[in-house]
């Protein structure tokens, strides 16, 4: 079965995560994705490099594509790209605002070459507004969007810590972009019309915090307004980041009782996570743990005067219980009552996890330079259109000649572009 985007051709001018991962998501849906790199290559080739120009991150974020090298800093290189564009359905880029115009790869220029082109731009802060021209990367936009402070983590030097080892704003922007491209293909199929799609790391960061970033005055008057006032006063008085976070952490919190059963605890030989969302889930956990005197569910006033002491007492009971047994014992009991719980697994073990294996989430693919590897596969499975690809990430410059030939360049033209340094990798790099 072909993928849902079978026959759709995507040209990607992108690096690091947000743009490249969008390309991978489209490739997983069956699109033919050609990645256009500068002679030095995507910078993520050098983050944790284990062979020249090859890193685990680049492999994970660029599988399923073919790779070409064109020097877009020269007008000659730009004309190569301009000759390719009419044969492509989609263009994906995550260059900083202004750069696309400078290298003649902006929407207006490319839409003149192919009027129904679907053009996706991913930027840090967007294409307008006071921060549009600022440099952005995932962790910076985590900070700007409130995600970092919202996670309330402080490192041992009193500085903020990223919310996670992953890059949430990048991934959500990439996925938003892929969604926009698919919706735009649907629209083009119905109307013949192409368009420009803009997605930002900032919008992604806010979407990830939608429940907290919003303003609902009726609700905020009680919980959020006092917090805003407190933060403003503390800042006025010169409070440090660590002090601000401590104040946030210790404020009256409606969610504290909820968090007893939605939290991690140590067990004898590792750590376990409870993930109760409903009163039924909490009852299941209480049954598994034999906790009989917990008043936090019925008509419990989570911001009442005794709430903190009651919550602390129950939390301590749960902690002591779980610490007295092993992972296997507790997981068997929790699974038996149907409670949501999981061992805290190690990513390094996940390639061999039986559930991951059963769902074939990490297929083996073969990289032309570095051999067989197992990668996180497609995000979704579809019953009528295959997802996934058995192509690894492209070595730098691997497909330049083949792609140009396929799109109407003669061998002579390719030879002379190569000797002029317009296409092909930087030999010194």
């Amino acid at each position, binding site marked *: 079965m072909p993928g849902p985007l079978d026959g759709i051709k995507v040209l990607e001018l992108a690096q690091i995560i947000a743009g490249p991962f969008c390309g991978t998501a489209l490739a997983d849906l069956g699109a033919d994705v050609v990645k256009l790199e500068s002679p030095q290559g995507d910078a993520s080739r050098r983050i944790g490099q284990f062979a020249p120009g090859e890193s*685990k991150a680049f492999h994970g974020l660029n599988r399923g594509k073919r790779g070409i090298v064109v020097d877009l800093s020269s007008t000659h290189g730009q004309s190569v790209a301009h000759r390719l564009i009419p044969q492509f359905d989609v263009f994906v880029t995550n260059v900083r605002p202004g750069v696309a115009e400078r290298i003649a790869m902006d929407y207006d220029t490319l839409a003149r070459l192919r009027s129904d082109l679907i053009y996706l731009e991913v930027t840090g802060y967007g294409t307008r507004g006071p921060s549009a021209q600022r440099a952005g990367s995932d*962790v910076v936009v985590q900070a700007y969007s409130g995600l970092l402070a919202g996670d309330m983590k402080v490192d041992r030097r009193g500085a903020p810590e990223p919310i996670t080892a*992953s890059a949430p704003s990048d991934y959500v922007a990439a996925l938003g972009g892929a969604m926009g491209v698919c919706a735009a293909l649907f629209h083009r199929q119905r109307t013949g019309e192409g*368009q420009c799609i803009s997605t930002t790391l900032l919008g992604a960061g806010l979407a990830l915090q939608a429940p907290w970033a919003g303003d609902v005055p009726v609700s905020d008057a009680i919980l959020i307004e006092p917090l805003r006032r407190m933060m403003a006063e503390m800042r006025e008085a010169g409070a440090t980041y660590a002090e601000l976070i401590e104040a946030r952490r210790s404020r009256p919190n409606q969610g504290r009782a909820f968090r007893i059963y939605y939290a991690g605890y140590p067990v004898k030989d590792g750590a376990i996570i409870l993930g109760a969302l409903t009163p039924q889930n909490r009852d299941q956990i209480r049954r598994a743990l034999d906790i009989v005197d917990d008043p936090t569910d019925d008509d419990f006033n989570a911001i009442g005067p005794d709430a903190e002491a009651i919550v602390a007492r129950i939390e301590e009971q749960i902690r002591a219980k779980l610490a007295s047994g092993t992972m296997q014992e507790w997981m068997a009991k929790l699974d038996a009552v149907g409670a949501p719980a999981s061992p805290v697994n190690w*990513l*390094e073990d996940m390639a061999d996890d039986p559930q991951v294996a059963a769902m074939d989430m990490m297929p083996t693919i073969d990289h032309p330079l570095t051999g067989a*590897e197992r*990668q996180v596969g497609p995000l979704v499975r579809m019953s009528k259109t295959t997802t996934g690809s058995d192509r690894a990430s492209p070595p730098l410059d691997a497909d330049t000649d083949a792609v140009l030939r396929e799109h109407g360049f003669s061998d002579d033209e390719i030879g002379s572009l190569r000797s002029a340094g317009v296409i092909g990798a930087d030999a010194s790099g």
Partner: protein
Amino acid sequence: MPGALDGIKVLEVTQIIAGPMCGVMLSDLGADVIKIESAAGDGMRLLGQFAPHESKGYHVFNRGKRGIVLNLQNADGRAVVHRLIREMDVFLINARPGVPERLGIDYDSLRPLNPSLIYLENTAYGPSGPSAHRAGADIIAQAYSGLMAGDEKVDEHGGPDLITATTPADFAAAMTSSIAVCAALFHRERTGEGQKIDTSLLAGAMMLQNAFASRLPVSDAIMLQPVLDGLAAVRERGGSYREMLAAKGGIRALVGGAFLLYYGGYQTSDGAIMLGCVTPTNRNQVRDALGLGPDDDPTDSGDFNAMAEDSAEIVARVRALISERFAADTTENWVAKLDQAGAPAAQVNMPEEMVDDPQVQALGIMVDLEHPITGPETMVGPPFDMSATPTAARGSSPPLDGDTDEVLAQYGYSAEEIASLRASGAVGIGSG
């Protein structure tokens, strides 16, 4: 201009975040989304409830939809779904595997009624495999997938500390679901064929780590195998989570230490700043702004070896130097200097204050809505713009049972039929 999914009709039986958020995304793209709830309502209505059945979380994850209440345990309630489904393009469900079958709303039951239906099922662990039937939630997928331990965060009791500021697995699953629905609509437009789509929180969480999760023997022999060996040794002797993290952490700190100098947070004289450098060019921009020369920081020079014995010491020395510089001036001044240099850096904002941020306002990310019960509200709008088919928030979240009568009437139910369905408890919240 209409949205890209203008005219597309979506019926959802979802709750909490992953399923509902997918519905919001499709609604932002222009689809007409109808949410089916039980008489008790989506569990999210009760999390942080500020008016009966109304919570901020529910408002956010259900804006732009109409809401109807059906009792799917009741044969008449089920029959309503079977009648509506004929006129729908997309059906979304996030329930435990087995539940759709029990309620008669699984793909095999609905497909004969509408062969070109696009049916999306999101579960915690996926539809098959040893964990398929286990209960799940975002935090469970964080733990199970390795995301939590990968963060190497541990609380004061030695337990794992979760990613709290958001629900990454839920969002990843919601977004991949929406992508798949759009791709399936495109496929249906070209071929007329509908299909079933499966997504899971586990696959979503794995995706967020795809750069680290892979197995790549050439690289792993050097970088990963020692970690796995260390972890196995701690497990062998029944060690704690904290000990496992310590065993695992060493090599990451060593290899990533120099990178994290310029990809992490520092205190300033009046707050905190975050650096996000991913290239040597970015790091040079920061060094220039801080007034650090190649002698102060050798970590980007060709002969710096992150695996060498003295590398941790060098990194610590550079970190002290950078910390000292940042501590000497205000966040505002440092951000201005780093902007000037073109380096990625930002002040650390608080989420509750983002509504008023000038950049957020310039982009129009927040949208003003009016909820029929709780009044005006400002919500995070669609996370992307489209030039020909604009994305837009189509309205607030529905009150429980807010649109049942209207939707049933739209799909051909007479007033008498609706009244009798209501009387029998097949639709609506009844008198309770």
